[in-house]
């Protein structure tokens, strides 16, 4: 069982990563906060022993992605409107920022992708995980993951061009 300080430390270290995953998966700031909170609460409740820090991080990512999928599959979710519209995307990047418009375009394009592609892009291009590591974390068949990655990359080609 972790101490209160350890939980607080873990939160400080990973909250932004989990929130970004939830935000890109769910497209709603409120849902992203719920997802982040729920992920850490599950961590507190799971009482699992972790091999190392990397294992702990992978567990948090997997749990966050699972949470998002369950939310997306829920009948409540399918009946409501998406609130992550232009207004919210604009608020993410202050207009004064040099790349604000480009950043918004990236998020808009990302949100047009099926949600199953978005976390793969984030984990690969931002967190720096290899496809093999992502397939282990998300527990997705490697060949399935490669297909999804190729499709996602194609759709985001313009924004990932420097990575090729």
């Amino acid at each position: 069982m972790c101490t209160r300080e350890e939980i607080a430390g873990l939160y400080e270290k990973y909250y932004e990563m989990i929130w970004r995953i939830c935000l890109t998966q769910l497209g709603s700031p409120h849902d992203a906060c719920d997802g982040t909170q729920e992920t850490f609460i599950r961590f507190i409740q799971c009482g699992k022993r972790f091999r190392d820090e990397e294992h702990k991080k992978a567990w948090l990512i997997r749990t966050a992605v699972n949470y998002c999928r369950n939310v997306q599959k829920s009948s409540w979710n399918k009946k409501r409107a998406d609130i992550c519209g232009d207004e919210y995307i604009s608020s993410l990047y202050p207009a004064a920022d040099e790349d604000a418009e480009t950043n918004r375009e990236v998020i808009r394009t990302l949100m047009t992708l099926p949600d199953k592609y978005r976390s793969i892009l984030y984990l690969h291009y931002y967190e720096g995980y290899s496809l093999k590591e992502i397939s282990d974390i998300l527990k997705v068949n490697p060949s399935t993951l490669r297909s999804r990655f190729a499709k996602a990359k194609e759709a985001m080609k313009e924004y990932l061009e420097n990575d090729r």
Partner: protein
Amino acid sequence: MKKESKYFKAMDKLHVPYEDYKEMKSRILENYDRSNNKTSVFTARKRVAAAVIILCLIVIPSTAYAAIRFTGLSKLFNIEDTDSGLVSQLSKYAVCEKTSVQNSNYRLTLINNLYNKEQQIGIAVCSCLNYNENADFWFDVRGKNLSGSGERWVDLGENYSDGGRLIGIYYSLAAGAEVDINSTELYVIMEISGKEELRLKMPECNDFETVKLVSDKMPDTEIILSPVGIKCKLMSKEDIDKLYAHFDFEKVMYIVYNNGDTVRVADIKWSGANCGIGVPEGDFYEWGFIPENLFDVDNIKSIKINDSPFDAKFTAEFKR
């Protein structure tokens, strides 16, 4: 990872608003404090509640069964005096026919389709001849919506594979907005490198409340999937010991099946609210995200399917 990409820069500038950061942190720590302070009381209450529920579950059906039998009502309900029990006697049978489609290179076979009307989810179990895990195979369930003007295709599925040739496709009608099952034909689609190779129309199948899977090669195998859990009636103590030797995970259930001459052991591991399927070497593959309220993981003991994917013959028994 190249930090000059537009994607990286856009992500890098995404920050949690400070108010949200503070609120989430305080709620998480509150939850931590609460769970630490109330553990003993909660556990005690939970134990009492569980004991009462178990008692009710045992007493009520037994009393009802005894009442029916000893008051002569058994003749009215046509209940035989057999070991198989009340539940199986009241079960009705429905079978999802195995269907196939093939071209010169591949054969796609739908072994079973389990669909739950209330949850609007299903699992299509398929096998594929010439499946090669190194190629970009993609299996999906899509719905052809026939209502309104013209046909409309919606993507409903999410596939997993066991890394061999047995494929399960979890699908959800909730995934395709405004899909009406009554006016939607369901298809299993197989794509290779983005090109559609085979399309197999799923036969109509009753929704399931309780499904019993029976293997013709393992007559003593009986797997029951129900809204409240999965039960298995087959394993000898030796089998279970052997399997448990491979794993030390919490909340694990097992599938054992023959793939040609090789017995492969796969496990379904509960992680968060989801299920993963994989082989014991640690390669976990996605099986589908089954809502927690559909399968109660605490009721899962073990599962054993002993069959070859190519001539697997499962029948589904539906309790009505």
